[in-house]
């Protein structure tokens, strides 16, 4: 309900501006953004990291879990199952990386749902940095573990010879488009969801007390949907990270 207040923010008669919530501003001084300017984006990234660290450090380790402990344990379990299903015997080595990624994206997404907060993952530069880390890392690991044999990834077995040139080109393109699709998926989901909420909140304000209740109830549902999307996108990001790492582990597909 509090989200409705953000719609009219600052300008009364002007049309609603769904992009305004994504503006990055420096926190402590005015002027242009430099390399080390502390912005609202950086602030919320720090808050996400602190919340995630607090969850895992402060959760008690009782035999009968408390609420906080069972949140931490179920997050751990989800990532543990995922890495074991996909990476098999290499799961333990890459588990910390995948858990860190998952928890950071999860907290950045969910904290962004708080009214007046800032969604760190709604900017493509953040998600592209994460995706490129995964992509470059997986490529290096692939070449270290398989040597030049990693290039066999682009030549699937069992393909007719006359189709091979086409398939190889498609495989190479789809390999290099991975960081793009990984980052655009997360950022577009976050941005689309938040803009949808803002537009719907604008409807509440425009229709006023008489008919504004309808979009208000729709907003409650949409916020629930956004919560689902926030968790799901963190899960999908971690899942695809596992898939790319498992491609780097063994080249026989």
């Amino acid at each position: 309900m509090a989200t409705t207040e953000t719609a009219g923010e600052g300008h009364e008669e002007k049309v609603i501006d769904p992009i305004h919530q994504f503006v990055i501003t420096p926190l402590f001084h005015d002027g242009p953004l430099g390399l080390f300017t502390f912005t609202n984006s950086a602030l919320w990234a720090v808050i996400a990291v602190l919340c995630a660290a607090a969850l895992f450090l402060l959760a008690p380790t009782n035999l009968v879990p408390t609420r906080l402990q069972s949140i931490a344990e179920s997050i751990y379990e989800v990532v543990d199952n995922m890495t074991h299903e996909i990476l098999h015997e290499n799961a333990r080595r890459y588990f910390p990386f995948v858990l860190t990624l998952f928890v950071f994206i999860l907290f950045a997404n969910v904290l962004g749902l708080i009214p007046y907060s800032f969604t760190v993952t709604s900017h493509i530069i953040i998600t592209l940095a994460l995706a490129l880390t995964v992509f470059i890392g997986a490529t290096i690991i692939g070449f270290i573990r398989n040597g030049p044999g990693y290039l066999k990834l682009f030549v699937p077995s069992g393909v007719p010879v006359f189709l091979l040139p086409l398939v190889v080109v498609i495989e190479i393109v789809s390999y290099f488009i991975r960081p793009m699709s990984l980052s655009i998926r997360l950022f577009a989901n976050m941005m689309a969801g938040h803009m949808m909420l803002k537009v719907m909140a604008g409807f509440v304000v425009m229709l006023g007390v008489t008919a504004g209740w309808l979009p208000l109830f729709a907003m409650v549902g949409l916020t629930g949907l956004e919560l689902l999307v926030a968790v799901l996108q963190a899960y999908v990001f971690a899942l695809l990270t596992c898939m790319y790492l498992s491609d780097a582990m063994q080249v026989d597909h």
Partner: protein
Amino acid sequence: MELDAAKAIGAGIAAIALGGAGVGIGHIFGNYLAGALRNPAAAAGQRGTLFLGFAFAEATGLIGFAVAMLILFG
């Protein structure tokens, strides 16, 4: 003024991509449900694949959405 109108029309056309994503996501979840009802024992093991397919199908539509936003506000 004509540029603004053309921008709005272009953004609307770009948003059609989301229709394709809707078809794809419905297809994936519908087929998953059909398969899960036939063999419920195997359903839980394929949930990861389900979300993977969902993510792939959604990504194509969201690229269309991103293009629409770039046209409107970029």
